[in-house]
């Protein structure tokens, strides 16, 4: 950060704007009434596997998922 002003609290906590806005969006979703609430929450499922590469070799992939296998 190049700014001299106080950074927002969420950035000080190590979040990016994306995480912050996602948290906010999730809060808004939780404020919906049923049945729309569960519908909206079910729609946004996260699942992917990501692996870092070092020296031309993939490391062990980590799976980012919010649904238990």
């Amino acid at each position, binding site marked *: 950060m190049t700014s001299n002003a106080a950074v927002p609290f969420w950035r000080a906590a190590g979040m*990016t704007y994306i995480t912050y806005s996602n948290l906010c969006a999730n809060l808004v979703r939780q404020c919906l009434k049923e049945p729309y609430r569960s519908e909206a929450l079910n729609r946004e499922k996260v699942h992917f596997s990501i692996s870092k590469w070092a020296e031309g070799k993939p490391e062990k992939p980590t799976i980012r998922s919010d649904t238990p296998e």
Partner: protein
Amino acid sequence: MAMATLRREGKRIAAPLISHHPDNPLRSSVTSSEEHEVLGVRSISTQVVRNRMKSVRNIQKITKAMKMVAASKLRAIQTRAENSRGLWQPFIALLGDTPSVDVKKNVIITISSDKGLCGGINSTAVKISRGLHKLNSGPEKESKYVILGEKAKAQLVRDSKKEIELSITELQKNPLNYTQVAVLADDILKNVEFDALRIVYNKFHSVVSFMPTTSTVLSPEVVEREAEAGGKLGELDSYEIEGGETKSEVLQNLSEFQFSCVLFNAVLENACSEQGARMSAMDSSSRNAGDMLDRLTLTYNRTRQASITTELIEIISGASALEG
């Protein structure tokens, strides 16, 4: 291959007719056909063609089914992809698109599919990424790859595995949604250092046409530098910023959010192109299977008829020889 076997068999059937014994033609033809029965040449070679026809018919059924599946998936995803275009258009209006920007640290994000059988969309994406890599490499510059999907990974591992930074797969297990892509974008932002992110994907135009496209997302420092240099980005100063945030803060938030939005759109567009390409690939392959089936049926019937005719001739000529 089946044709060759058939032709060979045709010669064998014709052979006893040529080398017939003048004194007892009936017996000679009967014994030679018995020999064929023993060898099993005649029955097997038509069976080869029959089996081939069966397998071609099964493949045709499978490709037809895949085409149907791709068509229904395409319909679902097409509207979402078209709607998601509204997410990045404001960013283009505000920040402009600068594919030709010259920076030190380039990260090329290649988007491909996890599954194959979808024509050439993955190899076009890889080709464009390689071109971008070549364009942006040089002394004091570096380009890295971030790869989405199995197929581009398999192609890029071959020649540039040293430059791969991250690879992401299994993205399409659940239907694509913004939260997922945002978490992914967050992971990418945290794990790579960049001055410019270049996203390579296939933009969906229609079921049969996709444009390989790059979108560029600049880091906030580069945006500021470019804004001072003037041009489209120079107009940024004419916007009034509300609240106590400074310009660099706003720019950082903006570029992070721009990245997740552009990535979301790119992933959707690519998934849409994938289904479209799969649909047309499966359509042409079931058509080819149909053509092949027609040809095989024709040869099969012709050979069968030829052997029947030969047998009839043998019987009739034998009978007339006995009468005379």
